[in-house]
């Protein structure tokens, strides 16, 4: 490194660079915040959707499935499962678990009530409507 370039100068570049990009990031996040309601159709977030999200979280679904591509890669993507399977299949499937097929991956039974199953479907239905820039590439997720 050049003689004239001291560690103080390097430190100042670090502080300046970091501050600049933190501010730029904050500005972008601020703008993004304004657009989230429209892109996620937040007006359609009913109490049932909120309850469904809570079920999704407290049953740790993300520990096996992906949702909009994030989560574990052990079980199918569920961001578009509403479109792929439809509401009745989703409810029947959840109720039928575990399949008990030897050697196959097993999903626990969560003993949901019918009302809870409806909430779950409402959450997945709303999620399916989020503008994900056309992801996933096809219906299989």
């Amino acid at each position: 490194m050049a003689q004239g370039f001291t560690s103080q100068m390097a430190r100042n570049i670090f502080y300046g660079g970091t501050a600049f990009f933190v501010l730029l990031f904050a500005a972008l996040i601020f703008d993004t915040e304004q657009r989230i309601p429209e892109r996620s159709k937040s007006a359609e977030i009913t109490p049932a959707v909120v309850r469904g999200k809570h079920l999704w979280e407290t049953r740790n679904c993300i520990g096996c499935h992906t949702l909009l591509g994030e989560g574990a890669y052990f079980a199918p993507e569920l961001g578009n499962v509403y479109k792929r399977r439809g509401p009745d299949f989703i409810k029947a499937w959840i109720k039928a678990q575990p399949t008990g097929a030897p050697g196959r991956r097993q999903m626990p039974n969560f003993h949901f009530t019918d009302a809870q199953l409806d909430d779950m479907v409402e959450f997945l239905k709303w999620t399916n409507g989020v503008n994900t820039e056309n992801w996933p590439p096809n219906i299989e997720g």
Partner: protein
Amino acid sequence: MQTATLKFQSQSVSRLYFIAAIGLFVGQIVFGLTLGLQYLIGDLAFPAIPFNIARMVHTNLLIVWLLFGFMGSAYYLIPEEADTELYSPLFAKILFWIFLVAGAATILGYLLVPYATLAEWTGNDLLKTMGREFLEQPLPTKVGIVIVALGFLFNISMTVLKGRKTAISLVLLMGLWGLALMFLFSFVNPSNLVRDKMYWWFVVHLWVEGTWELILGALLAFVLVKTTGVDREVIDKWLYLIVTMALVTGILGTGHHFFFIGLPGYWHWVGSVFSALEPIPFFMMTLFAFNMVQRRKREHPNQAAVLWAVGTAVMGFLGAGLWGFAHTLSPVNYYTHGSQVTAAHGHLAFYGAYVLVVIAMISYAMPILRGREANPKRAQSVEMWSFWIMTIGMGVMVLALTGAGILQVWLQRMPTENAMSFMNTQDQLRFFYWIRVAGGVMFLAGLLTYLTSFFIGPAADEVETGRARLQAA
């Protein structure tokens, strides 16, 4: 074998942290192997330990043991850099036991209580924070993490304030404060999933591709200063430039997670451009490590520590840099997002950057904590073997997962019609999953080899030269 004493007695608290870190690391790998097998034998351990529970234990143990490693490293490094005793060694010990007990209780909670019940018992309804990937901890654990982190930061910050302020300790402090600050976003869980996901990345991305890189840089610089004896002015400049590039690319690089989760389209550009630059700081770290070793002013007797340090730089570049770059551009990520390619990258990046840097620190500090400058030659040789066995085992795993990911993309993502379903695709990936398990077994063998290195004494002739040296002195 030369004896050595700690510069400051209070550095010895780090030993507790290092031992806990290694113990939890073993647990993490055991659960990792279970998960690898569950990919092949779907009903293995079901319903006792379903996949999601084992995964939660695997990833949470990783986070907790790395935090133990970071804290232990800081307790060792900060007094030496600040040239003064730790502000309160007793406080450090108390926090250690709090963190260990809280961590163990959380893991037992995952294993013994259904997750929904655990959520109910721990007040998740007061503030809903559970059930999001990596942030599954119950509310009391999250609050405990904040308290322990604040206590820890208070302790080391007071130490730095009363002592010498070096570039290494300042960068480390900023990294650790940043880590604690970003963790506060784990308490943010809006009912809008899109918003939830965005702030979730404030923790996850701005940890591993932001603040943690500062910690990584500082620890690496410390081990290199100590083992190569290169002038600080040179090392400080490198360190500042590396962490500058890490944050300049990493902060806006967060955008590479925002492509397909409901956020505006401009993130495709911001995320692609800046995250494509993220390998630069890792490449600089590689240059830095090799450069310092080449320009070394001394032959440090602990060559194992040098190997771990150089290994960190190289594997961090491969895992975080190259494997990250491979799928970070938006048009590529459109197909690979949430596939086994992501898993491949995650494994190599965490191992290369964070696992290895913590072991490099342990490898450098532990002999001194045990009263000698370096371990006996035979022990070091076993340690170096363990580096290669673990690294090659990880390499096998990552190549297998990459192969699985490419085939998965080909079968399930690329076809515009009649794409294969998720589960049918999984059946086609079994060959790769078996190789992944083999890599995992090798990794565990390497880890066990590493453990044995702590119990290997000097050879007979080494004891003799050690005595002769002592007498001469």
